[in-house]
């Protein structure tokens, strides 16, 4: 697993411990100038031999480049069979079996598998550990094309290790010669905890390097977060997104929200009385039961939009638009086309 982090101390210990107990053998981490204790957490795992730490002091969040570097190292230096690219706020939850078993089930001729984001919504910030508070999952994520909100459907990528692989910004796609994607099967849920507390959100807005990457076009939701920060309104921003008990009750009734304590329970099993997390071997392996058909149906409904963007619907819309343009042209456009060409000629 690769992990690119900057100031994620509230979540990164849990994240690494979780994945090391869920089937990940080694973490390749890039620390991008963390100042909040993240680095010390990474070093503890490095000392235990389960994490390889790289430093990246750059302040321009060249995510694609930095993750690609780790992805290639995984193939060339660490003998990885599969690589998955996680963020510190993501917990990759296999749908039956461990991560390793899920990936081992992929037939040999396929080299890319996608996981589907499932968003956990922020809850009122009482200073408690995020996973204890955040047990509310959004069941109706926005369309993948909707960049107004972080809470949209999207896929994250795992792939067979390859020395020439390129990872797209956002870790949504992997490209390498011969890496064939297995489409429309999302055997891993990526449990996503992006807004966790006021302090965490303020730090993310303040130190987000993405604003300084000239090649990166930030989506609307990132710009909105930044604006809230500049206006000193991060608390209001957080509270506007947080689900209080009333909203929770309404959401459960309409099916927009679900209670989901899977991560909370898994982390409880890994957490010692002092709040620290177990190193590999220090706690039993996590177990991931196979979901039943009801959960399959709900999950398929969320993943369905990903299948749509994965080619067919986008192409269909293009064809529809082309057909309309063509029909207009066939009906009336001939004269206009002649006139346009004549005008252009006259200008010369």
């Amino acid at each position, binding site marked *: 697993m690769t992990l690119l982090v900057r100031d994620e101390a509230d979540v990164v210990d849990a994240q690494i411990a979780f994945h090391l107990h869920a089937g990940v053998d080694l973490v390749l981490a890039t620390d991008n100038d963390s100042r909040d204790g993240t680095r010390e957490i990474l070093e503890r795992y490095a000392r235990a031999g389960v994490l390889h730490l790289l430093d990246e002091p750059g302040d321009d969040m060249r995510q694609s480049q930095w993750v690609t570097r780790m992805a290639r190292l995984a193939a060339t230096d660490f003998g990885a069979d599969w690589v998955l690219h996680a963020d510190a706020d993501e917990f990759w939850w296999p*749908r*039956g*079996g461990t991560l390793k*078993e*899920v990936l081992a*089930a*992929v*037939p040999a001729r*396929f080299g890319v598998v996608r996981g589907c984001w499932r968003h956990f919504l922020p809850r009122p910030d009482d200073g408690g550990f995020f996973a204890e508070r955040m047990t509310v999952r959004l069941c109706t994520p926005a369309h993948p094309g909707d960049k107004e909100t972080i809470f949209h459907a999207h896929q994250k990528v795992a792939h067979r290790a390859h020395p020439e692989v390129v990872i797209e910004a956002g870790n949504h796609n992997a490209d390498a010669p011969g890496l064939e994607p*297995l*489409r*429309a*099967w999302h*055997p891993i849920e990526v449990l996503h905890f992006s807004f966790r507390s006021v302090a965490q959100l303020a730090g993310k807005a303040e130190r987000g390097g993405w604003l300084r990457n000239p090649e990166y076009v930030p989506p609307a939701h990132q710009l909105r977060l930044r604006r809230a920060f500049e206006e000193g309104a991060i608390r209001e921003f957080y509270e506007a997104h947080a689900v209080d008990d009333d909203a929770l009750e309404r959401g459960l009734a309409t*099916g927009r929200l679900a209670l989901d304590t899977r991560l909370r329970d898994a982390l409880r099993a890994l957490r010692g009385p002092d709040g620290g997390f177990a190193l590999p071997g220090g706690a039993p392996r996590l177990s991931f039961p*196979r979901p*039943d*058909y*009801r959960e*399959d*149906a*709900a999950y*398929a*409904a969320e*993943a*369905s939009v*990903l*299948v*749509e963007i*994965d*080619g*067919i*619907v986008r*192409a*269909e819309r293009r*064809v529809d638009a*082309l*057909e309309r343009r*063509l029909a207009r*042209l*066939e009906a009336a456009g*001939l004269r206009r*086309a*002649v006139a346009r*060409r*004549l005008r252009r*000629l006259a200008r*010369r």
Partner: protein
Amino acid sequence: MTLVMTLLARDEADVVDAWLAYHLAAGADFVIATDNRSRDGTTEILERYAREGYVRLLHEPGEDLRQDEWVTRMARLAASEYGADWVINSDADEFWWPRGASLSEVLEAVPPRYGTVSAFLRTFCPRPDGDGPFAERLTVRFSALAPINDPASLYKPIRKVIHRGHPEIRLARGNHALLDSPFAPLRGWYPIEVFHFPLRSLAQCEHKARLQGTAFERHIARPPTAYHARMYEALREGRIADYYASVVVDDEELERGVGSGRLVVDTRLRDALRRLRDPSGEGYLRPGEAPRLAFPTPTLVEDAEYAVEAAVLGEADLVRLQRRLDTLERRLLSLELRLPNRVYRKLAGAAKRVLGRDVP
């Protein structure tokens, strides 16, 4: 939750009893059947289930296989008179196999904002003729993992659509599509497999070729499915036995096919039907006496293999899109080559002469 299945049948006596017994034990609440001129005992089997209250039987004397119209009529009845929440439109040679729970349970789990689900058609190969029920012999299916380049292949990847009940639904293209559908499709999830047994014996193959071929030749404007056309051609040229022999999978071929991953032995339907057979003799247990069938949740490895096979359905969509794009491109090209360019070339030529330089 009420699940109604519709069935259009003509001379399917070798499968229709099994079809009814199976689906009524697999989660269907009720069946609306249209009998189209059967003369082989199919009508009597349907009438028996109708007397017992499991089937509403319509008789359609038409010779012209107006399948869309007849199936649409049944699908609308399912909603308007039988309160169907979901409707599955089937042929008698199709057995709908849910993955992980009964048919009605799987469909009930579909979130309300979606109104159609696709099922994945899995075609079983004809095997050498013999006695006994078809499902005892036909336990080999074609793996969708094997590439299919022949558009006339019997084993083309195909999906069928299941829809919520609606009094104005319109079916098209032999139950494969809805017209002007009010329903949002749930894409990329195929919770139901359709075990398809189109060819079961030489006699049945010959009869089917004659019925379908005649209907298409005399009554139907659109061209028949390519494999139907091929079968009918063989029939007219007196080669139907050769044709059938060429598609039958014998034991030798089975061994080769399984070895190369092209064929898969699949006894799920056979085993389910064995549980439903009447131990005291012929036929199947009455629906009231039969056990409910159990449908185990597939394992992760089975799911992975299934996902790979089902992926060809997406690819088939893309192939059709490419064809539409090819057509578009030709139309565009012909437009572009018409008047504006001719005019432009002429004027550019004139300008060149006048100005003494090239016009780009």
